[in-house]
């Protein structure tokens, strides 16, 4: 298939047409999803709230000093300043317009409170109650800036399993407390990923305790090696287009194509393997020979057969059929029996 030529052709046509339609100015604006500003106001419940800027928020309410420090140290912290050259982000980008929260708070009141040894608290109940929003609304606060291009692994977020199941961005990402918790860039470090996923997938944690398992509990493989929590085109949020392609990232020796294929069974490795963990060796979902006998006729045997013959035929099929994932060499029978 000369598919690459088609793709590049589409790209060359789509790009200038799109630029012509949208105009260069709109391209440069990198604007957020509309109409977010109004949406935030509706969430707050007061349409008369106004944006007052970061300085007004931070100068009045020192309860947030530690949070501010954590935010400053995060990737998004630098976006508080225009000098960063990045899209500007401030407290109100996530918490909504703050005019109602600081209503009645004047520099004089802040100064007076300070003299009396107390901090001036804002009326934070008028801000967006992020923790109690529906998951979709929580995510929308992030998605207004993190459109697919800003964060392209969100390409399949909206129809993905997590978004569908009411998991939001803040279920995994800490915005204002990441630095304090020793994390980096608002996200968990790879070796700690499993602990984060187990918060919801505790039964999967137990599967990893079975006798054969991938070394996820040992922190040597990460959930994100196989899954992309942000959504993919595939079942189980697999990172690659198919099960086989996902497994073949590491197990390329079994990917093929081969001269003799195991029908099309090998397209889905989970037909025989449970990648999280299993009772049987090699992550097999059932123990050999029963695993194979589900589909294949066993070798010739009878009550008169010697024990050693039975043992040879009905212990581990893959001792003889050792190239079960596919082979390029014919067996002694001249067929593809995966023995050679």
């Amino acid at each position: 298939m000369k598919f690459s030529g088609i793709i590049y052709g589409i790209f060359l046509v789509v790009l200038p047409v799109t630029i012509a339609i949208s105009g260069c100015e709109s391209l440069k604006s990198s604007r957020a999803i509309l109409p977010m500003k109004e949406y935030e106001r509706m969430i707050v419940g007061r349409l008369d709230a106004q944006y007052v800027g970061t300085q007004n928020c931070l100068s009045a309410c020192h309860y947030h000093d530690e949070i501010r420090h954590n935010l400053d140290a995060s990737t998004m912290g630098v976006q508080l300043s225009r000098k960063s050259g990045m899209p500007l982000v401030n407290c109100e980008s996530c918490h909504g317009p703050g005019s109602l929260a600081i209503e009645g708070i004047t520099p004089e009141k802040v100064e007076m409170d300070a003299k009396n040894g107390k901090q001036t608290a804002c009326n934070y109940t008028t801000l967006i109650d992020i923790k109690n929003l529906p998951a979709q609304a929580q995510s929308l606060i992030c998605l207004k800036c993190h459109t697919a291009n800003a964060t392209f692994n969100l390409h399949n977020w909206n129809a993905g399993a997590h978004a569908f199941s009411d998991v939001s961005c803040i279920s995994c990402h800490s915005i204002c407390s990441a630095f304090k918790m020793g994390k980096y860039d608002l996200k968990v470090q790879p070796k700690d990923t499993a602990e984060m996923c187990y918060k919801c997938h505790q039964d999967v944690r137990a599967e990893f305790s079975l006798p054969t398992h991938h070394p996820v509990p040992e922190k040597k493989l990460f959930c994100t090696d196989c899954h992309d929590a942000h959504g993919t085109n595939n079942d189980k949020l697999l990172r690659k287009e198919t099960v086989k392609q996902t497994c073949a990232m590491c197990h390329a020796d079994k990917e093929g194509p081969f001269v003799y294929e195991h029908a099309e069974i090998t397209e889905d490795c989970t037909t025989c393997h449970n990648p999280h963990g299993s009772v049987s060796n090699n992550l097999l979902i059932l123990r050999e020979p029963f695993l194979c006998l589900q589909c294949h006729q066993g070798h010739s045997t009878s009550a008169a057969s010697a024990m050693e013959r039975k043992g040879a035929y009905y212990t581990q099929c893959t001792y003889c059929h050792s190239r079960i994932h596919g082979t390029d060499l014919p067996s002694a029978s001249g067929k593809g029996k995966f023995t050679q």
Partner: protein
Amino acid sequence: MYEEEPEAYVFPAITPVLSAFTGYGFVDAKGSARGNEYEYLHNSILLGGELKVFSFPHRLHLDLDLRNKNDYVGEASYAFKDIVSFREINRALFHNLDNITLKDLDPVTPSPGVDIRDAGKEYGLKAGLNSFLLRLKTPDFPSHFYIDGSLIERKGVQQQISLSGSGYFNDIVRKSRQRDIDWETRTVTVGVNSHLGPFELDISHGEKRFDAGGDKVLYEDYAAANSAAPRGAGRYPYSLVPELRGSTNTIKLHTSYTGGIVAAATLSQTDRENRDSGAKADYLIGNGEITWAPVAKLAFFLKYRHKETDSDNPDAVTLRDINDPANSYAYGVRPSISSKTDTASTAMRYRLLAAVTLRSEYTYETVRRENANQWAVPDSTQRHVFSLSADSRVLKNLSLKTQYTHREIHNPAYNTEPDRSDEGKISLSWIPLQRINTLLVYSLSEEKRDALLYVDRSGAVVTSPGKRDVQRDKVFGSVLFLLNDNLSLNTAYLYMRSRTQQDVAYRSNSANAFDTQVPYKEKAHNYSVDLSYIPWENVNINAGLSQTISSSRFFPGAGDLLEPVSIDSFSELKIKETTLLLSGGYKFKGGLQLGVAYNYRTIKNELDNSFNDWEDGISHALMLTISKRW
């Protein structure tokens, strides 16, 4: 974002953070290395540390945890404004592998026999997994260029078991030997993406290579095979690991312009070529999905996926004697299965009440196959999947999740695929007291198949008289006690059970035979207790104990399979695995900390079945570390 700042924001100085540690790890292991499958079982010096420098416009993060040459994790990240973003993760793990001792139940008789050439050898592989991503953004314009890649290496020695002798029925010898492994998989993807007003576009090209070093192919002196396609005695290749090359082109489109409707489409083409045999496979995959949320409470999801698999294997293959090229044999090859799969699904999410959400989903899939008749599988298969689920917060401290899925499959291709199945799952989360969290999850699935098909020795398809039933259930429960602010105790229990009952086909006295309704049972219990305690501000103590007991067995009933020994005795299994983890740390003034970690693992074959391949193993690992944070 929306308004000018009233005054220039003064970006504060963020103090760099540096920490480092060193120490020593003592490891002692006896018996099977499977007792500690992923631990390099040698004493070693421990080194590591972390550096965070967030000095705008630079962001640098380095992290290293070096256990030994075969076991480490390192990460490096660097960003310059939003112009440059780079991340690299390098890690390695060591996988202890079995040396299975093949059993010769009657050494006097040469066939079936065994040929053990690797007695006493220890096997293991180092797996190196390295990946990087470099992303460059155009200043003040939402467009990126990126390159990501990976290098996955496997090096070491493993056991290779194969069929020797003539490799035919009258001369069966199972042979074990050492195989040197030196494999390398490289992938590189280059792409660009941009925000083009109403939609976003990403286009990328990837290349993949797999090189097999070490013992890429093995050779064996085979006796003459008197099969339907006879071949003479000779030294022939076996167990070839082919090298691979391939590429992937992907184009992605995404739009969320209105906020209410979100659409994404992906078109990708992947090709793979076996560089040894010339076998090829092409995959064309198109995905489209639309999300529509007309009101906040209601959302609809539409997905469509088309997948084409075009397999092109050679029509014939030649086997050559490496000592005598004239001694060669050509064999015809049946064509591999190619297929076209279309999958369409529609789903809905409805927030009935603030505390109740309902979801439903229906998926229809059809598979059309080429060359299916040569593999005794149907030309087409149709699958219907219905799913319903509900999440509810019954009380403020009690939430309930339920899910039910029903599948109908017409013309299933393989015996493991049912005609119909039902699956249910219920999850209950309850906080009876402020400091006690409980979770209970139960899932049950049933699969039914009316007719099982087998290909007999002559190539004819035979149908078994019985049905196939599969039942799986799993219960998981955990209780977390937050005894006080410094002490928590988590207990968990998992029970898994699987039961498959179906006919087993075999041959007896040159005729097809069935052992009817043979059950296979598998079950596993796992208990775990984890404790975390901070008695003083500068002391932390952690402990974890986990034990898993698992077993599997099937129960043939036909005399042919029971005499003179039941065939299930060759594979019956009961394994007990215990893990104990103890760790603690003491912080001195000035950022100095002492750490100790002890890991005890044991795996025990409870049946002591001389036929199966599990051996007992035990290991102790003690890590002592000293760290300093600046």
